[in-house]
């Protein structure tokens, strides 16, 4: 009898002195129960943690539709001076969703950036490229000046003083019905006014900057 019982013991559990282990068992029942309980607990915890995390970081990967907003007529914007207009970046939250855009007609004598049907009017954001404070156009100085940390930009929006890391961002513009000027999505430019998909303030685009500060994965060019 004793010999038969010894033969029935599993070789995997033989050295553990666990009673009642049977031939063919590859794992002890205690170990199986522990693993199952831990696994089920982990699955239960993940089943609410992962959706919650995705819920919180989801907006990063959400693409926002392009909005075009009429800001005036073609005769409203001179070639050598800026006219401030207000556009809505985020609808539905009142004043907090609006921003000032400085606009003028493209002047072939000074504007050397790529010309196409979406840059016939130059629209510069009022967000300083340093940390996002609102710049204002000072007519007498022909400069954009930022009140927070002293950033200064010239007529083209290229920084000429202070901490800004790249020129002022721009908006695509278009003319509809031959008379109305519309402002569309924003894009960023480097110091040579080459276009990039929109970045946040404080992120340089020259040299290695465009790789260190990737654009949103869902950013799309119009």
């Amino acid at each position: 009898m004793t010999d038969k019982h010894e033969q029935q013991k599993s070789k995997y559990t033989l050295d553990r002195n666990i009673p009642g282990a049977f031939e063919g068992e590859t794992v002890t029942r205690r170990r199986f129960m522990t693993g199952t309980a831990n696994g089920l607990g982990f699955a239960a915890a993940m089943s609410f943690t992962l959706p919650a995390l995705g819920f919180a970081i989801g907006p990063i990967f959400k693409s926002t539709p392009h909005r075009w907003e009429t800001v005036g007529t073609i005769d409203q914007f001179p070639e050598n001076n800026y006219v401030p207009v207000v556009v809505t970046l985020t609808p539905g939250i009142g004043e907090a969703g609006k921003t000032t855009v400085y606009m003028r007609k493209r002047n072939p004598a000074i504007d050397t950036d790529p010309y196409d049907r979406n840059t016939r009017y130059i629209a510069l954001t009022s967000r300083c490229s340093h940390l996002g404070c609102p710049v204002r156009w000072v007519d007498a100085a022909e400069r954009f000046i930022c009140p927070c940390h002293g950033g200064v930009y010239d007529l083209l929006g290229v920084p000429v003083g202070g901490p800004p890391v790249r020129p002022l961002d721009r908006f695509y513009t278009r003319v509809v019905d031959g008379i109305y000027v519309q402002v569309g999505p924003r894009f960023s430019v480097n110091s040579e006014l080459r276009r990039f998909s929109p970045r946040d303030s404080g992120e340089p685009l020259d040299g290695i900057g465009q790789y260190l500060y990737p654009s949103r994965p869902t950013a799309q060019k119009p």
Partner: protein
Amino acid sequence: MPKLPAPPIPSPLKAPPSRPGEGDGKTPPADHAKHAGITVVDWVDERTSLSGAARWMMFRKVPKGTNWFYTLGSATMFAFLSQAVTGVFLAMYYRPDPAGGAYESIRYVTNDVFLGQFVRGMHKWGSSVMVILVFLHMGRTFFFGAYKYPRELNWVIGVVLLILTMVMSFTGYLLPFDQRAYWATVVGVNINGTGPLLGPYLSDFLRGGPEFGATTLSRFYAIHMLLIPGALAALIGAHLYLVAKLGTSAPPWAKAEPSKELQEAEV
């Protein structure tokens, strides 16, 4: 290793033995109340054994030379408790609505609610007090060398608590939703964004999208009143546990008294 004797219970907490001559049914009401209190405490203690933990936490030996600088940690904790209590009651009136409701609710608290200006003032100025106290407490720990073995882990927890406190300050600053709050948050989010590679994603996470949007304010509100306070409270518990477990350090100028054997050997 010899075991230290259990810390003594202060005499007011000890139940006095009843005197044989006074057990004639004429117990004064004060004694009744006292016995009722002791009975309740005993009832709870018998089922939880909490008195041992309380004694372990409260009646600790402290080194010679302990002084007022050692109270900065408790002061920070009380600043946190003040923020927690005033914050809970401010949340009863606050509305995280970016289209004007948030600003209006703060205006209502400040101008119209009974004691509203006081409670909001406590929360607003208390946040500065807490940050100052955190730094003083950190300076005390640094200059007294209290971060050294075996207290390194408590220093690490303290640094995390400092960061969480700064996150609380940052997220709370947006909630009044006036011009200062809005632009400070724009600047703050962009400072986060200047971190290479991950910075832009962190900005997007904070704003809940590419631009300051409809959910940014409620996102900051949730982080400010749910996410971070829970983590803060848990880590303060861990911080306190380690303080009680390891004991406080002696001030750096305190000299260790040589043991008796050494004193005799010197002679």
